[in-house]
């Protein structure tokens, strides 16, 4: 899922500073699960902003609403009235949600309340880790199901580099060396010989390097007449 975290409160206050009526829009999907932008966080943020603005001598009308998914038009359409009444929309969805609101509501000023961080999973309660870089050309079949693009600090395809020590990356002891993990897993699966092959340079066109990406599925598109 998409992992995000709330921006510093001061930054959020500055972003909504010009507005009187603020609508905090939460998202009920990824950011709810990572406790960054769900209904509860929307309510906490709205209450905090109401109190802070009041103490600041400029009481703002801050309300909150949460949709199931900010990244789909259908859900955004259900809150059209609230969005249109607001001077500013503070989205605490991921960056996709912020842009979806901007696209769906061309006249609305929308600002982000979160920093969208990465694609990952909760390793344990309260801890999220990156797992995928969305490079568009998955190589997990070559690396025992551990992604060096997302998890090696240098995105090496022929790792590990000389900075691998005691299982962690030279960048930071908190980072497990992805190539040590790959090595260990290939070894336990009896497929270490896969590491002896030289992997050629990656084609980054499928990644962001090919420009913004798009997928079209003709079989799923609705016919023109409908």
């Amino acid at each position: 899922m998409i992992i995000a975290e709330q921006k510093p409160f001061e930054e959020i206050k500055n972003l909504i500073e010009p507005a009187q009526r603020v609508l905090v829009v939460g998202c009920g999907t990824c950011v709810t699960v990572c406790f960054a932008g769900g209904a509860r966080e929307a309510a906490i943020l709205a209450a905090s902003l109401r109190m802070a603005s009041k103490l600041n001598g400029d009481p703002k009308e801050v309300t909150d609403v949460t949709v199931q998914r900010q990244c789909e038009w259908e859900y955004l359409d259900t809150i059209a009235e609230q969005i249109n009444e607001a001077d500013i929309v503070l989205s605490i969805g991921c960056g996709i949600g912020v842009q979806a609101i901007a696209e769906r509501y061309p006249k609305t000023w929308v600002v982000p309340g979160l920093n969208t961080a990465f694609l990952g999973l909760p390793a344990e309660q309260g801890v999220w880790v990156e797992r995928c870089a969305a490079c568009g050309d998955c190589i997990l079949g070559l690396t025992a199901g551990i992604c060096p693009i997302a998890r090696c600090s240098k995105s090496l395809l022929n790792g590990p580099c000389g900075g691998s020590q005691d299982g962690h990356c030279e960048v930071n002891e908190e980072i497990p060396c992805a190539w040590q993990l790959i090595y260990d897993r290939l070894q336990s699966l009896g497929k270490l010989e896969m590491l002896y092959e030289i992997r050629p340079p990656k084609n980054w066109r499928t990644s962001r390097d090919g420009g913004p990406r798009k997928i079209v599925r003709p079989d799923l598109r609705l016919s023109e007449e409908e």
Partner: protein
Amino acid sequence: MADPMAPNGYVSGSNLERVLKSGNFAVTAELGPPQSADAEVIRKKAALLRGFCDAVNITDNQTAIVRMSSIGAGALLVREGLEPVIQMTCRDRNRLAIQSDLLGAYALGMRNVLCLTGDHQTFGNHPQAKNVFDIDSIQLVQIVKNLRDQHIFQCGDPLKGLEPRFFIGAAESPFAHPIEFRPYRLGKKIKAGANFIQTQLVFDIPAFEAFMEKVRALGLHQQAYLLAGVGPLKSPAMAKYMKENVPGILIPQELIDRLEEAGRPWAGKSRDELTKEEKKARSEAWKQTGIEICIELIQKILKIEGVAGVHIMAIEWEEAVEPIVKGAGLYPRPVIEPLPV
């Protein structure tokens, strides 16, 4: 060597290649370019190294700190009559920039390149930078080899004219983890096209012997020239820091004890209690011991089968190269005249 060779029998004809091919024990040294545009620094350092090594590695923004470019400094070195080994990392350039820079380096007279992945930028003075890592060191070796032997760019397009004929180097860290995989990774680099290998600093001879035993078992010492990395320790503090903080560096306690012993006349006094002269004398004593240790290490390495030379990394201490090379009996350096093409 399996590489297609020029009619004269060399892949590049560089001095380093000639010395290695002649069977002489090679010596390379390292030169760190300045954090400035001052060519004089390169000239001064070149003067310290002249005659004591077969080629000089020029680091490429080592530890991710911005310095004069390796190719720029390399061009100065060529003018000074020394032979550079251009270090090329994948951190700051994509495959376009790397190939283009290598064409330029060759045109400027550089003949050796060391292909590295590069230290991560978080270590340096621009940790906010976006890194590149478009390719890795092994892929870089392949690219340089294909430029030279296939006359093609990475994309497959042919070069339109003269190809850069580099003597291709790669690095290996024998004691980084997973340690069992290191000889195989070295094999990958050689399979990719590395002609010579320079290793991370070696202080632990038994551990290095064990590594070399595996290298020989895989026959790698016959497919590329292996230069063991050595360097003089400046102080016990530096030795401890490297032992604890630099991945892949093993320093036996015995060596640290020897450095401590060298500083014993000044022991028991804190840094503030020592006079300037005392500090200088202590530093000299440490340095002298560091050089002695380095010489002993080289002498032990000379006896290890499959090692073709040493790479002396005297970090910001180029003056140490002369006494080390002389002390190890590696002076004067052989002169192998280039063969006519």
